[in-house]
């Protein structure tokens, strides 16, 4: 009987949920927080976006993302060289923060999802499924690709008066990656992943 009950994580009020149709959302009757929102074909869709994300992530981190031309001098930056520049200026904490939120967290997200979703797709549970999915959820608020994208836009506008900006391959890959990773998160139904642990 306990399995059908769910406590709202906004106010702790217990609700009894039976099947919620796909596309609908169950809200808490007292505080209005979302109780549960089932997703259509969650594992397949999320896996598709994860695979696309893995390819885009590779391109975004290896190709130059912006070129900057002043006079006859051209400067090209990859993401890694930008972070390296901060390390050289003794901005260790900021450099680490950028490295963590823009490179490491999205990379770990993609790896966790691949590790979880590929076996689940074939109805198997990977080892340490609960631990890996917990890691994914803990890291979730720290992935800030979309904010980084807006940061690139703002700095491009700031620099456009100083010199010519040349958009690189990685910039387009980044733009696509932002949307693909959001789609990966949105299509994933966490409940389905937890349910598969019960199945064992």
């Amino acid at each position: 009987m306990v399995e059908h009950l769910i406590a709202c994580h906004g106010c702790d009020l217990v609700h009894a949920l039976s099947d919620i149709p796909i596309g609908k959302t169950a809200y808490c009757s007292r505080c209005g927080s979302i109780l549960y929102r089932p997703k259509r074909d969650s594992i397949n869709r999320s896996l598709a976006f994860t695979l696309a994300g893995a390819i885009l992530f590779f391109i975004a981190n290896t190709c130059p993302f912006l070129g900057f031309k002043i006079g006859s001098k051209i400067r090209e930056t990859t993401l890694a060289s930008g972070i390296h520049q901060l390390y050289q200026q003794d901005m260790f904490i900021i450099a680490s923060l950028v490295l963590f939120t823009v490179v490491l967290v999205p990379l770990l997200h993609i790896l966790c999802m691949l590790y979880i979703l590929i076996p689940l797709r074939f109805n198997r549970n990977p080892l340490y499924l609960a631990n890996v999915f917990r890691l994914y959820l803990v890291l979730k608020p720290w992935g800030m690709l979309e904010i980084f994208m807006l940061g690139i836009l703002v700095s491009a506008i700031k620099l456009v008066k100083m010199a010519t900006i040349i958009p690189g391959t990685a910039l387009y890959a980044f733009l696509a990656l932002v949307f693909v990773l959001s789609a990966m998160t949105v299509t994933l139904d966490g409940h389905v992943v937890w349910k598969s642990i019960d199945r064992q």
Partner: protein
Amino acid sequence: MEINRSSITANAATAREMGLVSCHRCHLLCKLYDQKSACPRCGTSLHSRKKESVARTWALVIAASIFYIPANILPVTYTTSLGTVQSDTIMSGVIYFIHSDSWPIALVIFVASIFVPLLKLVILITLLLSVQLRWISRAKDFTRLYRLTELVGRWSMLDIYVITVLVALVHFDALADIEAGMGALFFAMVVVITMFAAESFDPRLIWDNLQSTHEEKY
């Protein structure tokens, strides 16, 4: 998005009143046998409410408020162009964009870097006071405010990324050079600390007061 009433029924009691604990990670309702039990499904340690929520959140909010001051006074970037060095704070960056007629960008930076961190601190202090002083009449609004802080807090990282890109790209020795200042470090700390503060606050405490007041009445 109204769903069929028959598929969702609200209980009159909270999980705690029923002697149950909702797992923070996977939301499984569990029976708490002793203080050290873990969720049988995902292994997260179980707490009915986040541990020391009010004290932890206060500590983080106070720390962030202190760091907010140097973050806004100290320069975030030093720009060298043709031998002259110009230092910029967050606010002077906003004013620069207003003067160069790109007010939408000025607005974006102002909102992300000055308004949102301040708003977040004010909201968290309001929520803490609401729990401690038992302001129960607006519980639903306070829950909404909490969801808002969770949602918008991360966007303050914008300025840190702008500085990163500027520092990485503009590096032409004496001709043009941008370096990051100490203000950027303090600002980054404000963003990170307020994110932890929002995470350590437990919105269920707002509603716990409501219940204990009912119990006193009847």
